């Protein structure tokens, strides 16, 4: 039996194909585009992994197109585990920086089995990076993707972005809990119980990752508030448009209007962030700004992105206007003054200001400062 993981070929960048077959004795062959620069260190790194697996009697061939060390680790582990029917080895713990409140204007999807996109995912200023194990990974690559995403979480600096993994199934959470992404993105949520279970599992495993739910069914939309209020780990919620449309037998995009409104209201009622859906338009900057602006006006805190060049346009659209900044500044100054004087509620520009408005004003200024 031969097991292969990863990709090689003239058009492949930053990946490695690992081929494992049974052999009378251990054997390691390395073909690498960077042999003259990193040949020795690649061999050392691979021998170390083989040693950790007890130097099994396998013949391993690497066809390397410039894979970074974390990719070499992930591909080799995945190939050996696959071939020897072993679970992925335990990794050191990583400290999560999960936070309830943070800007989530942009969440950038990175396909979970595409190593070349990972090292630079964090340089484009996205508020969140989603390493995707679900729709963008074909079934036969799920295991390799899981191994890769684990290593990426431990190695890559995402530049302060919220690191998020969209899981494919609940087993992914067990594998990834030690790597503590800032959040797990849970697809196809249609009941509060689903999130309780996950939350409980994370509690037991001392993992502080937050949760973000994608609701993708008519049932899920009906349960929106129960889901939104199910666990304090849940920080945000969004609608999975394509699956939802299929579920309600609709084809028109505006058929999502009610569901979006329902999710928006439920999220706000439960005190979590409502997030708008992904746009796959990448060549039309004006459209991206218009869509983002509309979503902002509807109360959403961000949208999903599939290309880094969308990010700046979305951020521009979500940026507070000068009127909003001015209002926020006034709210803060006058509310704090009122607190000192012991007055409860005040009015700014004829609008009642209480604690939630004050907190919103603080967030407006805080996020404006970051951008």
């Amino acid at each position, binding site marked *: 039996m031969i097991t292969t993981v990863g990709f090689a070929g003239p058009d492949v*960048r*930053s990946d490695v194909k690992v081929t494992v077959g049974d052999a009378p004795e251990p054997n390691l062959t390395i073909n690498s*585009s*960077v042999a*003259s*620069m*990193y*040949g*020795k*260190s690649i061999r050392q*790194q691979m021998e170390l992994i083989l040693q950790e697996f007890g130097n099994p009697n396998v013949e391993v061939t690497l066809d390397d*197109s*410039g*894979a*970074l*060390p974390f990719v070499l680790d992930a591909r080799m582990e995945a190939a050996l585990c696959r071939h020897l029917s072993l679970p992925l080895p335990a990794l050191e713990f990583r400290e999560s920086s999960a936070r309830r409140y943070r800007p989530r204007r942009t969440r950038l999807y990175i396909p979970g089995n595409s190593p070349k996109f990972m*090292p*630079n995912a964090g*340089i*484009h200023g996205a508020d969140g990076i989603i390493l995707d194990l679900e729709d963008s990974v074909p079934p036969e690559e799920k295991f390799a993707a899981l191994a890769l995403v684990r290593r990426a979480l431990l190695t890559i600096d995402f530049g302060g972005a919220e690191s998020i993994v969209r899981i494919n199934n609940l087993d992914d959470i067990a594998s990834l809990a030690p790597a503590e992404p800032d959040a797990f993105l849970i697809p196809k949520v249609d009941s509060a119980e689903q999130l309780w279970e996950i939350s409980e599992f994370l509690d037991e495993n001392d993992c502080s990752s937050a949760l973000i739910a994608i609701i993708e069914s008519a049932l899920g939309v009906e349960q929106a508030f129960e889901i939104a209020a199910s666990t304090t780990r849940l920080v945000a919620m969004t609608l999975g448009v394509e699956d939802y449309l299929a579920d309600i037998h609709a084809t028109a995009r505006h058929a999502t209007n009610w569901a979006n409104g329902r999710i928006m209201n439920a999220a706000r009622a439960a005190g979590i962030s409502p997030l708008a859906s992904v746009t796959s338009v*990448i060549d039309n900057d004006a459209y991206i700004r218009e869509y983002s602006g509309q979503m902002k006006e509807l109360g959403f805190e961000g949208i999903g992105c599939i*290309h*880094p*060049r969308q990010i700046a346009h979305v951020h521009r659209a979500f940026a507070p206007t000068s009127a909003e900044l001015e209002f926020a500044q006034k709210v803060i100054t006058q509310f704090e003054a009122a607190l000192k004087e012991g007055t409860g509620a005040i009015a700014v520009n004829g609008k009642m200001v209480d604690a939630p408005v004050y907190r919103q004003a603080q967030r407006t200024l805080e996020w404006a400062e970051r951008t």
Partner: protein
Amino acid sequence: MGGENLMRENKVGRMVPQEGNGRMLIPYGDQKPLGHHTAPRTRSCGEFPPSGDKTVADLKTALKNAGLRDGMVFSTHHHFRNGDFVAAQVFQAAQELDVKNLIWFPSAVFPCHEPLLKYIENGVIHHIEGSLNGPVGTFASAGKMPGLAVLRSHGSRYRTLQDGELHVDIAVIAAPECDMFGNMTGARGPSACGVLGFAVADAQYANHVIAVTDSLVPFPAAPWQIPGNLVDQVVRLDQIGDPAQIVSGTTQITRSPERLLIAEFAMKFVIAAGIFKDGWSFQAGAGGTSLAFTIFARDEMRKQNVTASYIRGGSTKYLVEMLEEGLTGSILDGQTFDLDGVRSVRDNPRHIMTSPFNSYNYHGKGNVASMLDCVLLGATEVDTEFNANVVSHSDGQMLHGIGGWQDALFSKCTILAVPTFRNRVPIIRDRLTTFCGPGELIDVIVTERGIAINPLRQDLYDAVEGSNLPIRPLAYLKQQAEDLCGGAPEPQAPGTRPVGLVTWVDGTILDTLYQTS
């Protein structure tokens, strides 16, 4: 060919031979060679038919008339880029005429020239004196070519002919439209390629000039780019090039997020540094990051109502649109990349053909490159002192020609737009694999992880102070890439057998290329 015992260290610490391809060589930095205007032998008009008809039946006849013999230096040009059929037909004819040991002095080679390697193997061509890349570069790097590949910039190639450092016996110029007298242009004809700037030096300085064309038109082929008074013979061929490969018609804007980010940083830098202003000038090529920079520049110019006085190209439809929209006063075109460029250089008097003499020549009375406010260039490696490599891969393999890269370094602000690493190859190194351009002429390195300014340019530091640009030390950018790549690359075994020379714009020797395993 120079052996190891003749190697000597030059001013930038590279070992270079003192002699190569039968010529004495001057190491970079030792002295500044003077320029010359070589006077080629000139035939009198009395030797030509009074009718002005210089056409001959075929290429073989033309070569025989030109006195073809063993060891001659031949030149061809790359204005047909990867669609060139001329070089192949020239050496095919030479083989049929049974000559050997020719020296080929192309303005550049392309992958389409791979079939010509057989002429090196069978001795028709002795060696190629030019910037080698693609399959030809691989061949030379493997040590299979007798003689040394001599890599020169476009400006330096012109200077080489002008100074008489190398003398071309027979120049064969591909002419998309030509008349019987030899007046020719690249702007018209079925194989129109735009400008013929690379062939100007050969037309002036070669002993014998043959124009080959697939579009022979009645005299006068006017306006012409090269006058027939410089041409000895005219040959009509069925095909001189593949129009689809000569000009693509579409120049793709990159979608690579890293390249776009680098181009965006570069644009923000030129704005912050005050380089971007009404009347500015710049040069950016047709490659991914450069083209993206041009697009960003165009958008900013529209937005801020700024116009350029001139843009140096590689012209593309984007430059043409800017010219037609009034965003630039003119295009100084050295090479035309697409059909819009061809149309524009044909129809628009503000779209100006230039030769390397106009744009880049070092032994000339002034250098237009030094007047450019900024240029955006690429590199394969940069060292911590801002020196850079553009010709070889990090394993020493010949990868790219120098092109106009060295020449353009003379601009007021030279920006190298490079990623910090490519495919686990860190770009910023302690020591370059091949030394191709001195850091004192390289002002800014723009990467996806930040911008490094040459410490020699305190004025640029001051100009961008207070901007929100990610200005970082070059060492920091180097460290970032090495952290991702798993440390600095392992040291390479030093080369032993020279296979090529990297010359500087004045003809002195910057570095040696060695055989790779």
